[in-house]
């Protein structure tokens, strides 16, 4: 279906570098680089032993926003929520298997959350409706988020068949993702053109004028 409707180009760069260093550039249909999308490679033959990323993913609550808005982690990795605001937040995730909720007071942090199931974690704050953040839990250690140049660079990827997945909550595709099988044997540079542009990321901003709070 996707192949049929959207043009996807894999461009092979002619390089003589050492094997299995992969560079993926994500662009939209207007040839603009797309920053901040999650890119990960899942081995087809899942016999590989995925090494667990040890360090926790830190998500700040600052200015009544989730920062970063979007993040990726490996299944089993823990998230460390750090409240840098001067108000209490009630962080929750109400969908899927990775449901949790807790209150976190001003200046405190919470390390209790471990994501055990791969998939999307849509987070919100029950106190501040506008706050919204996403964490994607993947079942692979090869994941990245495109930089300001729209690039994701993977090193030391063992050769083999992979499913390349590009994910973003504002990518208007099935499950907000875009997948492609790729064979990795050498160093490759991929250029991925998304079939659809990203929707604007909702501003995590209070739409009402709670100016009176500033005095507290």
């Amino acid at each position: 279906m996707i192949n049929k409707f959207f043009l996807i180009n894999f461009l092979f760069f002619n390089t003589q570098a050492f094997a299995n260093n992969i560079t993926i550039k994500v662009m939209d249909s207007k040839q603009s680089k797309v920053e901040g999308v999650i890119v990960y490679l899942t081995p087809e033959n899942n016999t590989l032993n995925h090494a667990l990323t040890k360090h926790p993913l830190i998500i700040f609550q600052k200015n009544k926003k989730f920062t970063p808005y979007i993040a990726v982690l490996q299944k089993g990795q823990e998230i460390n929520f750090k409240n840098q605001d001067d108000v209490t937040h009630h962080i929750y995730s109400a969908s899927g298997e990775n449901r949790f909720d807790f209150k976190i007071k001003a200046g405190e942090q919470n390390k209790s959350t471990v994501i055990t199931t791969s998939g999307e974690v849509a987070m919100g704050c029950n106190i501040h409706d506008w706050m919204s953040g996403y964490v994607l839990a993947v079942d692979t250690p090869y994941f990245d988020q495109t930089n300001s140049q729209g690039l994701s660079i993977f090193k030391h990827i063992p050769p083999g068949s992979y499913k390349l997945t590009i994910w973003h909550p504002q990518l208007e595709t099935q499950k907000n993702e875009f997948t492609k099988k790729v064979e990795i044997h050498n160093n490759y540079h991929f250029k991925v053109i998304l079939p659809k542009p990203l929707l604007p990321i909702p501003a995590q901003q209070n739409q009402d004028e709670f100016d009176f709070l500033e005095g507290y």
Partner: protein
Amino acid sequence: MAIPFMKSLQSRIFILFISLLLCVQMMSFFSTYQAKQKSETVQLNNKIETAKQVFETQFDNRNYYLSAFAETAAKDYGLKTVFSEDRKSFLLALNNHRKRISADLAIAIKPDGEISGQLITYMKNKQIKVKIGPEQGQQFSNLELFTQTQTAELYYLDSKIYQLSLAPLKSGSRVIGWIGFGYIINQDLANKLAKLTGVNVSFLLKDPDLPTSKKIINSNSINKITYESKFIHAINSGKNDNYIISHFKLGEIDKTSLTALLFQSKVSVLKKIHDDWQQFLIIFMLEIILSLFGAYLISASITRPIKQLIHQIKYIGLGKYDQDITINASQELTQLANEFNQMKDAVVAREQLIRHQAYHDSITNLPNRNYLVERLSKLQNKQQNFIILQLNIRRIKEINDTLGHQVGDKVIVEFSNRLKLFDCNDELFHLGADEFVLISQKQDIKKTISQLSISLDSLFNHENLNLHLQYSIGIAKYPEHNSENIADLLKKTDIALQYAKKHNRIYQIYDRQFDFNTLERLHLINSLKTAIEQSQLVLHYQPKVSLASMKISHVEALVRWEHPINGLIPPDSFISIAEQTGQMDALTRWVTKEAIRQYLAWQKRNINIKIAINISAENLKDKSYSDYVIALKNDNNIADNEITLEVTEDAVLSDPAKATEILTYLKSHGFKLSIDDYGTGYSSLAQLKQLPVQELKIDKSFVQHLMQNTDDQIIVRSTIELAHNMGLSVVAEGIEDERTLLWLKEHHCELAQGYFISRPIPAKLFQTWLKECTYTTAKEGK
């Protein structure tokens, strides 16, 4: 009856007032009615408009309420947390929310569209119960419509219509599902809205392409009328004028649309107007009755003075001028009355003038004939004796013609003045022109006339011209000459006057003898024609003696009228009538025919007598009579000179040339021609000489007293001699004694005719007379 009624002024004013009032009433009535109707309609429209606004507000409020609540509920963390947990917990939480706003429908939908929870309410034992909806576990159709709009949309479930608003259930910004709440649109709602708005409310769920609705929900009618769906459709389409409607679309379900219909029957308005109308009508009728009464009073007050006026004018119309018209009324009518009074005075003055003019002559200012007639009537009543003198100024026409009418009038005035001075006891009247009448008590007529002559006979001097006032007087006496009608006296004086004038006398007293020529003439004129036709005329024959032989040789045929009533009428009386009325020709022809018939009859009996016929001027105007008598002569083979035609001098003198021509013509055909009544006319011998006549007939006035009058003897003798010298024979008529006969014979007169010989006698007697007379006839053998 209707038309005289309409002609009365009072009725007209009355009707005018009533008509005007009726018009005003009707107009005010209808304008009120219309205004009422209009205002009611406007009110109704306003009501519908208000109802629409109320309805929309109510409906929008429900929408807002639903969407706001769904929004709020979706943010409820408890609900959010149980959404992904066990269904039972979630449904309880959902129902908990539903209850808060008494929603009729609560629904939860997974992002993939599967209805994870559906709760609907129903009534059981008058209690609201909740049950799982039939669509739970199924796909929610048309999710996009609901999720894209904030407001509530219509939702059709289990044959029920709901207003449903969905709100997203989010985890952060990730939509993890939808929850929604709905209110049912049912009759309760319709009733509630109807109660709020005061108009009928209907909901129609209808495919625009189909005539019938999928579903109709009606409020309980305000009028307790159950509306059929057909009826609702008619109202909705605006086909029923008896309703004011407002309809608007509430939304769509699939392809059908839900329309709200607000309507109010105009009947209720009209009923109100009808109720008011009866009240109006009563007021209207009251006003009409008052108007009638008022109009009657007004019309009566206007016409009352007019009626008074009419009454008084009628009185004056009868000729009673003694009273002035007085009315107490408006300025105009008072003025009219004054005008009438002035008119009346003018009429009186004019009437007096006319009366004066009617009874007085304009020239002399003397009482006239009308006055005289009245006066005579009065005198008659007094049983007094008096005489009437009718005076006529002679030759006034000549004065008018020669000196002018002004002088003529002066003469008349002078004459009247003299009469006025004559005797103040006598009454003087001026009948007009030159005729005057005096009524005098004096009985001595001769003395009166001689006294009058003294007064009148002096000369009248006009511009050094001395005029002698000549006059004639006709006199009648009362009671001597009175007949049934006093006015006849005037006729009698007139007849006497005419007689006096004719005979050149100064005066003449009336005599009955005079009347014949006047009064009975008229009857004769009319009956002469029938007399000729019916042979009332007869011929008498007067013999003529041939003096030389003393034989009866000729007769003169003389016409007589044996009138069936008046007896024998002498020819003098009717011949002049025949002449004046153009019947002379016919008369002469009759005489001629009869005379010739008699002549022939005698010839048959060997009585050889020549016959003489009188012809008139009429017969000499053309040849028609000549041809007639010539034809008679020829047809009967009568010898020449057997018939003598006698013609008077005057007849010839009127047109001598023509007469000469005709006479010559007659003579040439063997007629003997004789000049009749010779000596009375003015013909000269020179003229006579021209005429082709053979005989002269000396008028009897010269002969009758021949023996006593030597002058007549001279005239007769010289006439005979003269005639003989001119070759004419002579006939003498009017011989009344033997001496005259002998004298004439001695003087060689040829023929003699007169009473001495014989009166004119009828033909039958004539034969007898012939046998017995001393004369011989020309009959052979005697």
